[in-house]
């Protein structure tokens, strides 16, 4: 569980990694492993950008607690089937292709992006891509202190629904457990490094 912050390849954590199965498989096994490593950094609750006076409306509260999808109303919003079908297959195709698409959101950006994690060979490439995509610098990773030197930090939601700092787990494990990415900024980012 040493620092091992050589940023070149896999964050050099391979030697210290407890592995009970093949990399990228067996999520239940991974869960046990990651819990044992106790590497989860507590993140401030994801706050949806609700109204101007920060009043999250009821629907957003629902999303935070119980992420059950709302039943879609037939024919609403009123988008022509043609348009729906033109835009949806693009997403569906992308997901069906041999790739692993996850959404990336950034605080303050009006829109989500989607990236295919499998095109990156490791964290350095991923972070460079994120920097390019959102036109910002993320800084250097350190296990103890998170991302220093920048007001941004990349986080991700794993299969347990917990928010983790990108880089905390080996790359392969990250690939298998990452559900979505979120780049947080400001005080939240700085607070991450300090654990509790």
């Amino acid at each position, binding site marked *: 569980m040493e620092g091992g912050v050589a940023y070149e390849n896999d964050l050099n954590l391979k030697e210290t990694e407890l592995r009970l199965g093949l990399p990228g498989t067996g999520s239940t096994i991974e869960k046990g492993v990651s819990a044992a490593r106790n590497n989860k950094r507590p993140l401030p609750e994801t706050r949806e950008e609700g109204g*101007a006076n920060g009043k999250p*409306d009821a629907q957003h509260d629902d999303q935070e607690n119980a992420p059950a999808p709302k039943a879609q109303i037939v024919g609403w919003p*009123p988008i022509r089937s043609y348009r729906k079908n033109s835009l949806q297959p693009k997403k569906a195709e992308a997901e069906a292709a041999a790739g692993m698409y996850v959404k990336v959101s950034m605080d303050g950006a*009006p*829109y989500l992006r989607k990236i295919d994690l499998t095109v990156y060979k490791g964290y350095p490439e991923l972070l460079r891509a994120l920097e390019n995509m959102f036109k910002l610098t993320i800084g250097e990773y350190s296990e103890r202190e998170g991302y220093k030197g920048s007001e941004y930090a990349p986080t991700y939601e794993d299969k347990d629904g917990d928010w983790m700092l990108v880089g905390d787990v080996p790359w392969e494990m990250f690939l298998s457990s990452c559900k979505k990415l979120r780049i947080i900024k400001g005080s939240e980012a700085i607070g991450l490094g300090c654990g509790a």
Partner: protein
Amino acid sequence: MGPNPKMRKEFFDSTRSSPFPDEVLERVLSLLKSHKDRSAVSLVCKDWYNAESWSRAHVFIGNCYSVSPEIVARRFPRVKSVTLKGKPRFSDFNLVPENWGADVHPWLVVFAAKYPFLEELRLKRMAVSDESLEFLAINFPNFKVLSLLSCDGFSTDGLAAIATHCKNLTQLDIHENGIDDKSGSWLSCFPENFTSLEVLNFANLNTDVNFDALERLVSRCKSLKVLKASKSISLEHLQRLLVCAPQLIELGTGSLMPELTACQYAQLENAFNQLKNLSTLSGLWEASAPYLPVLYPACTNLTFLNLSYAFLQSHELESLLCQCPHLRRLWVLDTVGDKGLEAVGSNCPLLEELRVFPADPFDEEVIHGVTEAGFLAVSYGCRRLHYVLYFCRQMTNAAVATIVQNCPDFTHFRLCIMNPGQPDYVTNEPMDEAFGAVVRTCTKLQRLSVSGLLTDLTFEYIGQYAKNLETLSVAFAGSSDRGMQCMLEGCPKLRKLEIRDCPFGNAALLSGLEKYESMRSLWMSACNVTMNGCRLLAREMPRLNVEVMKDDGSDDSQADKVYVYRSVVGPRRDAPPCVLTLSGL
């Protein structure tokens, strides 16, 4: 000698023959193009009615069930061009079953007999089969223009028949249809000696066409003005096409996915540079930022830019807009965000129409899209704006009031706050005042779509102020029957009213008894109307067709979907089992 009273009487006698010979009258009337003007003219007197009927070359039928093809042919013997609309608009949003009707075939059969020289057919929301397309292709030797918008029931085989047989075709416009896209071979069916095409829009289709056939077709059709390609056309293909057709006025690109070498990029840029006359640009599927600049040279004279299938970010949009100083119409996806709309406000002073579509309408995890801020920014910069379609996730009354103050000339105001029944997100109040401001300020308003949390007050405002309103769409709104009554009593020019998921019941439905004959149609779904209410309406108003569709598992007494329309031919005889016709009972 005083004026001769007998002469005066003759002068004012409206049944007296026209002072002009019929041929002159017909000649004069043939200059009238607007079908509304022609309808008015036909009411002056019998002579004018006859002259107008003989001189009418184009007939517009807004509801295919309001009249029969035989009646049309009897009245207008010399028609060359027909526009026909079928299903209720909510069929676009899957609210109408597939086999509902609006089959074009019976019309084609009559036209083949009565209008063998028919040249143009434009269909919207009609059911069109391959057999019908083949029938059309074979039976009308002068056929020139086919436009299919939001139609369904046909496949690319039907297009093959058109391409094969229509020797004089000038326009093939296949737009947003539910088409069975089997193969691209239809395009190869145009004969090698076929050169008359002026408009080709096959953006709807996905299967690959034979590119060489397309290239040859474009090369030999020297009058081609409009070319809208499908996604299957790559950038490299596009470059070759543009080289053949620098005279294009409207272009729909294929896919803008990056696959070009530097040399190919330069060639493409050069090709766009040749397009001096381009006024409309669309397509741009999967538009990718590095390749947008290739379009810039063609943008100088653009008046209509359709980016509604391009996932652009704000800065990408801004760079593109800087190239288009004459833009009048802009369609975008909400990926551009409020910041992108600020760029619109700053760069498009001549803008008249803006449509902002949601890229992810069903995804709850999207944080923003566009908000009231974007709309406001546009209104400050684009004072000539008169048509807006705006999908957003939040809005305020104050913003809308300011927007219409900046742009009082709205004729079409379609605002969709995507979460049903959502209030003003700052004050938590209903959005009544927003739409009140719209109808009060925009006296020329013809079309309105409302959304958000709305009480009957909105409809009181609409009834009181919207004196030019013709089309009104209402969803998840209103508090009581009074809301609908206000609309029906107040809007003298109302022609199309479509309502869904509102608490309007029989009293509201029946308050419009006198009104519906002056309207094209009424749609009400998921409201509180019952079968008895509909039966009463049908009984009282025999010249209306009252049709009800029931949802699976609904109460026997509920009229889940109601469609009411005036007709001179009585209840239709082709209604499927799921449509209950209540008229004439």
